[in-house]
């Protein structure tokens, strides 16, 4: 009898033993990611993947050798959802490359991020314009420096085909619609192709359309108010942008070249459009400057006299040069010595030159030597960024809080393409605006 009872005692002990092991294991894990001990390894987390990630790793290879710090880069297409979960779950990376200042602000406001160290602050003052510095600033505290930049709202086309159809690069929005109509009549096929698919982030390419139109139709002031939610999504001014975009995106005669009907925009991955554009299956496509890399991978030469070239989405009136753009901000979850060193390096002109030299991207860093830009489209993008006449605004969805910018705004665009009523979509997007603290 006593033997049986002693055997019964085995289970609770096992539970306790396992719990003990689990607890000690936890303490080991969290201890190493804290700010105290410095293991000469810095983990970086971001959205930049595949070829771009390799170039990124190449860009800091020399720095790693000199400083003896190992940089471990991890990319995820689900970064926008994962970073918040990891921060709240106590498992953040040392540095995160935020493609959205809004998301950075979300985390900074909740005290997950460390304010920028002195070296970074100095670099930002020296190398970045006030506008760009503002994107890394939350409540007057600088949290990080910008990394790379891209010009958004370019419309990609094939110059040779334009000549064949006898159309010219449009100078106003109405001309763009006229060109679309002409191409449609000449070819009998849909001229535009679009792809909103991007896994968890599906819908983001659509927000670029809306932002471009809000900026051009309503001007920069309304745009800024819209970002700050002083102009609501349900405002007629925003609806006007949706309606204008809908003239192309929701017209079955204009989309979706070589992919199917209007709703196929959602099932098409945004990158899958590149081969269609390169092969000439579609005539027009709206996407940021980074798309040149996708086109080159698809085998097209990107140049004014090459296979594919781009023009900036035209304004309502002729001669307007308003443009939206994007970029990344590097925020830090750790303040150990190695992390600070890496963050400083990434904010320096040295890094910007090192990365831009490898091709495919640009930076808004003033210390960047324009001669390092690798292709004509990037030179053009730098020109646009540096032109004083350009009205530049950061991508609105990236500035908004994550719940809207990387949440209901994306989802709303997907539903809108699926055929939901514009008014209902706008109401749903607006409802995602964060509740009071």
């Amino acid at each position, binding site marked *: 009898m006593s033997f049986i009872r002693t055997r019964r005692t085995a289970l609770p002990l096992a539970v306790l033993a396992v*719990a003990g092991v689990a607890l000690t294991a936890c303490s080991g894990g969290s201890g190493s990611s804290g700010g105290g001990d410095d293991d000469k390894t810095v983990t970086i987390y971001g959205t930049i993947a595949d070829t771009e990630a390799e170039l990124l790793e190449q860009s800091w290879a020399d720095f790693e050798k000199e400083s003896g710090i190992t940089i471990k880069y991890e990319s995820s297409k689900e970064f926008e*959802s994962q970073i918040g979960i990891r921060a709240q779950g106590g498992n953040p990376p040392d540095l995160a490359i935020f493609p959205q200042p809004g998301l950075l602000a979300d985390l900074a406001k909740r005290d997950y991020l460390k304010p920028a160290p002195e070296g970074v602050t100095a670099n930002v003052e020296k190398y970045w314009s006030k506008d760009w510095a503002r994107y890394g600033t939350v409540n007057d505290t600088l949290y990080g420096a910008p990394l790379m930049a891209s010009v958004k709202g370019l419309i990609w086309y094939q110059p040779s085909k334009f000549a064949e159809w006898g159309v010219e690069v449009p100078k106003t929005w109405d001309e763009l619609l006229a060109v679309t109509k002409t191409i449609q009549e000449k070819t009998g096929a849909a001229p535009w192709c679009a792809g909103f698919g991007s896994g968890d982030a599906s819908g983001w390419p659509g927000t670029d359309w809306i932002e471009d139109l809000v900026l051009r139709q309503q001007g920069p002031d309304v745009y800024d108010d819209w970002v700050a939610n002083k102009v609501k999504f349900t405002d007629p001014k925003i609806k006007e942008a949706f309606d204008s975009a809908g003239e192309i995106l929701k017209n079955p005669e204009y989309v979706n070249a*070589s992919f199917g009907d209007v709703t196929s925009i959602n099932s098409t991955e945004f990158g899958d459009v590149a081969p269609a554009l390169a092969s000439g299956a579609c005539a027009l496509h709206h996407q940021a400057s980074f798309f040149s890399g996708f086109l080159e991978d698809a085998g097209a030469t990107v140049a004014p006299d090459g296979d594919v070239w781009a023009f900036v989405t035209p304004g309502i009136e002729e001669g307007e040069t308003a443009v939206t753009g994007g970029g990344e901000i590097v925020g830090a979850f750790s303040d150990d010595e190695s992390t600070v060193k890496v963050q400083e390096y990434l904010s320096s002109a040295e890094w910007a030159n090192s990365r831009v030299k490898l091709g495919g991207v640009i930076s808004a860093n003033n210390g960047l030597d324009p001669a390092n830009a690798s292709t004509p489209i990037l030179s053009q993008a730098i020109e646009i960024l540096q032109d004083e006449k350009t009205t530049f605004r950061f991508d609105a969805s990236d500035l908004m809080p994550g719940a809207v910018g990387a949440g209901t705004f994306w*989802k709303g665009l*997907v539903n809108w393409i699926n055929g939901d009523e514009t008014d209902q979509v706008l109401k749903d997007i607006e*409802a995602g605006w*964060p509740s009071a603290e």
Partner: protein
Amino acid sequence: MSGFLNWLGGLPPLAQIPIVVIAFAAVVALLLFFVDIAPRKGTLYTVIRLAFCVLVPVIVVLFFGSFLWAAAVAAVLGGVLFLLDYRSKKGVGYLVQLVGFLAPAFLLLLIGLILPTINTTIAAFMSASGKNFVGLNNFIWLFTQPSAIRTVVNTIIWVLLVPALSTAFGLAYAVFIDKSRGEKYFKILVFMPMAISFVGASIIWRFIYAYREADATQIGLLNQIVVWFGGTPVQWLQNEPWNTLFLIVVLIWVQTGFAMVVLSAAIKGVPTEQIEAAELDGTNGWQRFTNVIVPGIRSSLVVVVTTISIASLKVFDIVRTMTAGNNGTSVIANEMYTQFKNFENGRSAAFAVILFILVLPIVIYNARQIKKQREIR
């Protein structure tokens, strides 16, 4: 520990697998060994226990470098071993032992289940930051959003269809292959999807549903079949409300194997005498099935249905992987996650509470059934 993991992470993937398996087996074996010898009498066991009490804290110091933790571990270990050794036939000693053994389990339940439930319920009535009381605001928000109501409705559709269909399919299959030749292999065929993770299954099915334009090369199995029969490709995951049904198919595919295996075992447990008696009474196959087999496996049916119901209430991976909740396919668990990642802790908690309330009746029903069966025995 993190050093070990870092070292492991640097190895080629194929080398990592055996090392992880061996390490896991070693830890489990060690635990079992000590669990086995902990309460035994004799000098040898006392020496082993003593060594255990000394060695484990030393290992803790070596691996984690924290004397504080080592001291805590030593105290816990010593205390537990002392309690285990404090044998007594009855009386106070027995009570001490009982409390000592129940305490860890109760503590874990408290930390892992009871406290989080209370915390979440409180959070559901607080603002996003968790600092201000907002009353029913989160629930009002939830039930005034068409998209949020949709997620609740979708979840209910899942929980109505998945358990019913997987149990029906599993039961039918189990009955049909019962005592047939090659039963084992038929079972393996249907049980295999159980071995695939939900995310893996979702990726497989996403390929099956993949859509390409009519004149393009089809990469999706289903659309290829449609094209072979002269149809036009369908965007399976895009058209509401059918896309939810196509997602449900995935969970049914996974869960049918579970239902089949449990029910098949139960069917084999129905006494042959009863079936033979029914046969002698002149019943046909269907009558035997409804009047003898089904009542005979009733308890297993309850377990299967409730288990699958809870699984389908909690469904998250399939929706997240296949549509990310777009196109009106979102469910509560997915929305809970989405709100949490957006730092809307209050709204997220409100979804969690709704889910909890929906799960509760099923759990209570299941518990009552199990209790009833015990009473009969």
